[in-house]
């Protein structure tokens, strides 16, 4: 167990280093730089002024030197300073992570609330009208893009109800009512898509488990069907669902950008979007590395959770 864990941690560190290298290379391949991207259309500085501005930010130095300096800071827990705001990247990230985590958790909760019951119903009533409706809903959820759903939602809410989720993020522990009124609809839109994926996964996984010998044994012992499904089958059937959800959660941390932009919620997605548009290298690198850490950690946790869900699984 411990050697497995150590091996996975080492693999994770290697992944993180490769991610840092790749991100650094890719962002520097992008044309333009932070100085140019911040200029007003009417501004027309001379090349000398541009050169001085680049020198001031240190982005004129050789790439290897820039990478070495940045990596040196990272190893000491310093992700550097934003090239646009001059604030510490970690500070900028943590501010935004708060909202994104709220959005991701709420989306995930909504997804689970929809997906698991419908997935179970769909599986235990396979090929009935209930199953078809469930599958139809899932296909619908997968087919409707977030950006379309969000645009339609905000437009029609404004026209029909005269209300849209209020702008400005309030953490749930500060103002629960405002928080929910802000995030429920964006989270519902993200959650609908997630639910579609998870529902299909729950259904197919449960169907497979329900055909296992130990389920037949449980039924033969006279357990009621509800007990068989919820007590024996569901726990094992949730393993692939949790894997998918874990991965989806990681994706959500940086992947809610469209919904954030449309509902004017300043999360990590919009921070990354701004950073890419403005070529704020340090923010892009810092944010990507931060998420790489989260994803590696989440995956490790998911792998570790298998043993809890299924005691037959052992790590070597």
């Amino acid at each position, binding site marked *: 167990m411990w050697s497995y864990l150590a091996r996975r941690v080492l693999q994770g560190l290697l992944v993180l280093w490769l991610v840092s290298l790749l991100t650094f290379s890719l962002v520097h391949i992008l044309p333009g730089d932070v100085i140019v991207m911040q200029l007003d259309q009417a501004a027309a500085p001379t090349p000398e002024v541009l050169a001085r*501005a680049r020198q001031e930010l240190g982005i004129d130095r050789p790439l290897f030197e820039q990478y070495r300096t940045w990596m040196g800071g990272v190893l000491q827990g310093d992700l550097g300073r*934003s090239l646009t*705001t001059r*604030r510490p990247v970690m500070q900028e990230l943590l*501010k935004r992570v708060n909202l994104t985590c709220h959005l991701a958790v709420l989306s995930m909760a909504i997804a689970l609330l929809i997906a698991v019951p419908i997935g179970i119903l769909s599986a235990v009533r396979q090929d009935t009208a209930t199953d078809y409706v469930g599958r139809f809903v899932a296909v619908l959820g997968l087919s409707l893009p977030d950006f379309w759903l969000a645009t339609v939602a905000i437009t029609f809410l*404004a026209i029909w109800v005269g209300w849209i989720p209020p702008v400005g993020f309030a953490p749930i522990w500060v103002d629960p009512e405002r928080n929910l009124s802000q995030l429920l609809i964006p989270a519902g839109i993200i959650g609908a898509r997630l639910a579609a994926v998870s529902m299909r996964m729950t259904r197919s996984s449960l169907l497979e488990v329900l055909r296992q010998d130990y389920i037949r044994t449980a039924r033969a012992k006279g357990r009621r069907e509800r007990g068989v499904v919820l007590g024996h089958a569901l726990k094992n059937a949730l393993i692939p669902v949790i894997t998918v959800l874990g991965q989806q959660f990681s994706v959500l941390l940086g992947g809610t950008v469209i919904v954030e*932009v449309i509902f004017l919620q300043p999360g990590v997605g919009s921070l990354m979007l701004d950073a890419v548009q403005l070529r704020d290298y340090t923010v892009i690198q810092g944010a990507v590395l931060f998420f790489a850490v989260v994803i590696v950690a989440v995956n490790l946790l998911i792998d570790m959770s298998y043993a809890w869900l299924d005691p037959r699984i052992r790590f070597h």
Partner: protein
Amino acid sequence: MNRHRLWFLVPLFAGLSLSAAHAQGQKPAPTEGEGAFVYVAPSFIKELDTKFPAQPPVPPSPPRYGGVLQFPTPTIRAFDPTVGYRADFALVWDTLTEWEATWYYPEVQRTPVIRKTLVTSWEMKDPSTWIFKLRQGVKFHNRPPVNGREMVAEDVRYSYELLKDKAQYANRAALVKTIAVVDKYTLRFELRQPDPKFYLNIVDSLSPVVVPREAVEAPGGLAENPIGTGAFMLKEFVPGEGALLVKNPDYYLKDKDGRSLPYVDGVRLYFTKDASTETALFRTRQLDLMRVSTLDLLYALMKTVPDLGLYRVPSLGWGDYGLAFAIDKPPFNDVRVRQALSMAINRDVIAEVINRGDATLYGPFPWVMAGVTKRADYSYANLGPNYQYNPKRARELLAAAGVPNGFDLEIEWAEFQGWTYGEYAQLLARFFSDVGIRVKLKQLETSTWIAKGQGIQPFAQALAVASPIGAGPSFMDWVYLRYHSSMPKTMNREGISDPKLDELLAKWRQDSGDKRPAIQKAIWDHLREQVYRITTIVPPHYRVTQSYVHAGGNPYCWFPGYCNYEAKTAWLTEKAPARKLDKFAQ
């Protein structure tokens, strides 16, 4: 197994389809009022012309004090003029002067009015030496570490020195060689080159703003100590979300009746990135005024907010639809090819497709700078044959230039919020193919396109892009910097090098002012002939306001974010939603 049960979906879909078809069948044929928009556009434009004249009504008097004005603006990453540039900064930090404008109206176009903000007078000792007298008693915001001390000449000198090397202010600050403090309220500007009209080049927000040294040097700099002399004080800035500004109670400017400015208690900026978000916020009265990018969007908005106020401002030249060439390469180095390409374009169709016909023709630079002041005169006749659709003549010119069978042309373009470059590029491709030119469209990532448009990166052959612009009605940065061969590509994007043009520009620069209109006209005529850049049309700006907002509608500074005077003079009636100066919740 049980697959036959799938059939229950068939009647379901059939039922839904029939219902939809039935509903469609019940609808009467589209009428002008509700049908396909394309048929409505001409009458809608006519309605706008009569219902919303370009000069909006004068706001009633007296104004009502109070309220919080809310409007959207593109994301600001750092609210700090030493780090970046945004016109919105002028709400907090003043420039020496600002445009009072009414610039677009024929009777005043030749004499743009400058509002004296931090300076009260100026004097030209010689074309290279200018004396500026500062307004006395102007105080910085009453916040530590500056604590409301008086703004003096040394602050202006310090600010120009600080900002002259910042890319965002460089083209204006670079005109100045040195600034000397003569006394507490007097400054002497020594210029790099003689300029008899220098005072016109320091107006507006591209000129360095005035910042106090103590705030810049305090821990956190101006970002943590956003102190200026402006009408508003920054209360809160939340990156990605917005900014909250509160009224400066000590602001020095008064309105024409001597009342203190600004009228509103505060301004809230929302950093929006999406048109549907902005319209939803406007519909739900969370935004009081905003810009609308197209006539289609304006039409949709007017359907749901029928009592909105509209200020339809003819654009000076910002946001035109143009085409830049790599004129140092063949065949674009041949004027006949450039003229042929320009003649191949039907600008009426461009206007129709881009903005349903609500646009004006656009020449080498703003009409008014060539002395054309009436909008009725913005015509093909005044642009000349190179701007008129004439594919036959275009083919003849191509033949004369030695490319009778056309050539391969790559046009680079990109999506850009508020513009419809995709359709524009496709139209260009179509028009050029009609005269035998084989066009390949290459879509760029927006930031790359911006870099190419700014002259930072080269483009291969042609770039669908707006013309290089200036800030305000300054011939210096609309024309001189954009066409003089001594300018780098960041200013003269195509690297135009034309001795005759240089000579005209030099003459213009040295003239004391009397002959400038004639020289500008001569430059216009020369550029119309040379077609160094293709220009086509420019749509107007649309600013919509809620019915409870009275905003001046200053034609040059037509939007609060772009020009701070609008925010200073806008006011809200008692019907405005009650709002508090609450901080953003984060």
